[in-house]
């Protein structure tokens, strides 16, 4: 018989080991799942985890890792600050949308003016938009004691409708032949969140004939060929890295970060210590909204390019998984964001090459969080084998 025993202190070894264990367990259970679907489990796992990094077309996928990982990391960093304090912003998806709308609106308001200050203004607008959207649950919580989980989540659906209305109305491209969606910001240099650190410039599709099928695929999507051959680095990814450093310094070296952690660990002790709960709620929701808004703005002005009805693809929700997978630790989140991006990209390849249903891939990603939560217990408990006693 097994028995769980509480450890006198959390195990440091297991705090680092559990994410790795969770990934291994997910691979195993995912393999079983894929086998049950009649696919070769080893091949499926290899396609998801190996091919994007080291496979034949890795040069195409590796930059995607940053493009997809950037917003996840940026949003998750913001969320993790609140989660550390026990403030549950579940509505990052909505703040992401509003940040994108605000950023794009600034750009479109200046169109077609060519000026250096447009992009910085867009950054500011995106940050403010996301922050203000998050301030709604924050102020309601502070003033009326509402539950920020419910309010922030419901505001996601409000934001989605706002997005649809913008794509069909105010921000619709006047030269778009009546199609929904705004102008493409990639074609407006002053507003374009262009790739930085371009590694390799525009190989013509026909010069790499062996993989032309892939390019057909890439071009039929909304991908920009120039960006695909860059490192994948854009201003949003850079901002995400800065956010990682900022969060690390804040949490480990600054009184405010200490107050945030204290509020999460022991709210009464925080109050006794002199931390104002109101200030922490406003700060945490504000900054997580701001980071989600920034992520949205960088996405709309870069990889996505336009405000469209289906602009948001769930980064704001996935970032919750990323934050927990990364143990709410900035460096952990950096790694978790890249890992999650990997399963996204690998999952897409597996869908295309092996014909795995997309639901199976989502299930696979969900398993990761479940396994993490399950093995997390080992940080605080140890398993002991005890002899069965006669009752």
């Amino acid at each position: 018989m097994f028995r769980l025993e509480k450890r006198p202190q959390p195990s440091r070894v297991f705090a680092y080991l559990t994410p790795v264990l969770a990934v291994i367990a997910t691979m195993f259970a995912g393999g079983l799942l894929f086998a049950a679907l009649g696919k070769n489990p080893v091949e499926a796992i290899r396609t998801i985890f190996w091919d994007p990094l080291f496979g034949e077309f890795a040069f195409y996928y590796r930059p995607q890792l940053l493009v997809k990982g950037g917003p996840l990391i940026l949003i998750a960093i913001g969320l993790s600050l609140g989660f550390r304090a026990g403030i549950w912003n579940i509505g990052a998806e909505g703040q992401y949308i509003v940040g994108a709308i605000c950023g794009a609106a600034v750009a479109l308001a200046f169109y077609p003016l060519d000026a250096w200050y447009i992009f910085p203004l867009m950054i500011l607008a995106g940050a403010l938009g996301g922050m203000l959207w998050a301030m709604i649950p924050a102020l309601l919580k502070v003033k009326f004691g509402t539950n920020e989980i419910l309010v922030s989540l419901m505001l996601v659906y409000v934001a989605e409708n706002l997005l649809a209305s913008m794509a069909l109305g105010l921000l619709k491209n006047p030269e778009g032949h009546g199609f929904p969606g705004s102008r493409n910001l990639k074609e407006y240099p002053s507003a374009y969140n262009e790739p930085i650190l371009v590694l390799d410039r525009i190989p013509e599709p026909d010069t790499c004939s062996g993989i032309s099928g892939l390019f057909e695929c890439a071009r039929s999507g909304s991908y920009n060929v120039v960006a695909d051959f860059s490192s994948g680095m854009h201003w949003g990814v850079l901002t995400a890295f800065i956010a990682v450093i900022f969060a690390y310094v804040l949490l480990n070296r600054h009184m405010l970060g200490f107050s945030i952690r204290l509020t999460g660990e022991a709210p009464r002790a925080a109050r006794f210590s002199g931390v104002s709960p109101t200030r922490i709620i406003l700060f945490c929701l504000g900054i997580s909204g701001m980071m989600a808004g920034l992520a949205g703005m960088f996405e709309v002005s870069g990889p996505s390019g336009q405000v469209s009805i289906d602009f948001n693809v769930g980064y704001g929700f996935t970032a919750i998984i990323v934050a927990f997978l990364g143990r709410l630790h900035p460096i952990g989140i950096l790694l978790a964001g890249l890992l999650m991006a990997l399963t996204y990209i690998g999952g897409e390849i597996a869908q295309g090459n092996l014909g795995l249903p997309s639901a199976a891939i989502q299930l696979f990603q969900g398993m990761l969080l479940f396994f993490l939560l399950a093995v997390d217990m080992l940080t605080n408990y140890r398993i002991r084998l005890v002899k069965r006693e006669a009752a």
Partner: protein
Amino acid sequence: MTGTLLSIRGLTKAYPGVVANDSVSFDIGAGEIHALLGENGAGKSTLVKMIYGLVKPDSGAMQMRGAAFAPPEPRAARAAGVAMVFQHFSLFDALDVSENIALGMEDPPPLRDLAARIRTVSEEYGLPLDPYRTVGGLSAGERQRVEIIRCLLQDPKLLIMDEPTSVLTPQEVGILFETLNKLRDEGTSILYISHKLEEIRTLCDTATILRLGKNVGTCDPRETTARQMAEMMVGSELQTPKGAGGTPGAVMLDVSGLSLPAPTKFGTALKNVHLRLHAGEVLGIGGVAGNGQDELLAALSGEIRASRDAIRLKGQDIGHLGPTARRQRGLLAAPEERLGHAAAPDMSLTENALLTGAVREGLTTNGFLRWGKARDFAETIIKTFDVRTPGPDNAARSLSGGNLQKFVIGREVLQRPEVLVVNQPTWGVDASAAAAIRQALLDLAGNGTAVLVISQDLDELMEVADHFAALNEGRLSDTRHTGDLTIEEIGLMMGGAHDGMEVAHVQA
């Protein structure tokens, strides 16, 4: 006293790293009140849990009236006639008395019948209790009655009581003792756990003393002095804290007309509290738990803001200031609840040193933390107050209650407070740690700090305090000189018999 009810032979229980009970043997006679005495961590709880079927012994055996007794779970122990009143009540505030009692029964009768039985039993044993009252509105003493009656309804042969008087006024203690004596006369055995020696001497027939998991002796408490028993408990001679006997100086803290609404539904409102605290003075505030102690501490520490002029520190209005600003001005506090209030359980001692020390110890520059300095401060506390821990990187929750309490009190004392407010400074702390903490408070007062000690332990207050006042339902009595007080007067003050004083304040 005829024959043995429960015979305990060689009970041993080891946990990782500690032997909680090491071959403990003793007998509880039928119809006797048997005291189980020992410091915190001596193994009293483990022993009682084994009798009650919550913990299985590693070796050893028990016999109930000659038959083997090894309850695998509390239900079996209850079936064998063992009942227990825990120190911490397991009652639901929102339910009424009879509902609470029904919840704990295997097979509850209809509520109406149960209420009638509760009435009968409560009258029979002199424990008045209305079965239809909501538990949230009951005092701690009344809550305990609910627990006792819950046990009595099972018609127990052995009643275990874990520190029952810690929440009672002297008068309530008197009522409880009458009930217990009546039970004994009817043939019920009582295992009475306590560390209050005088109580044991008045109530109990036999006392078994545990130290570090071992039975170090059985004695007749009526024949043994409290000091002898205490020394058996501790295993060494006791040091009685000595005050420096300084003369009180200027008024440091002046609380006048402090009224605050109850912070939570089951909290206590503070009503027109007046007190004056002088430099070098120790003011003790007594009272039964739940009469506004937590609220008074929160109002003084700044966790709850009051009106601007309700609290004055050295003549300055500070009622509207938060904890950090008050600390800056020299008013420090240590709340009762160690884990979760005075300290963050999962944070290291270094981080916990930062929790209140940031301002006065200069542990930050421009908001950035100086970990090295915080660690030094934690180490100083550990060294000065003899906190037993491998080092400042250990989590607060890994410390024993007494050690963490030394850390918490030491953290405030070392910040050279001008006014220090502590709530239950030695609650759940073993005798030697308690003596060290009291000595530290007295030394602080000797050096001119004004010290306010809120405590439910009257012996402690009599030992350290120059002046005494009592809290009752959020009202504070007049302050009296400790030396002039009799235990009866204190009981009356705690019970709220200070109406004359209220009128005086209204007139003032």
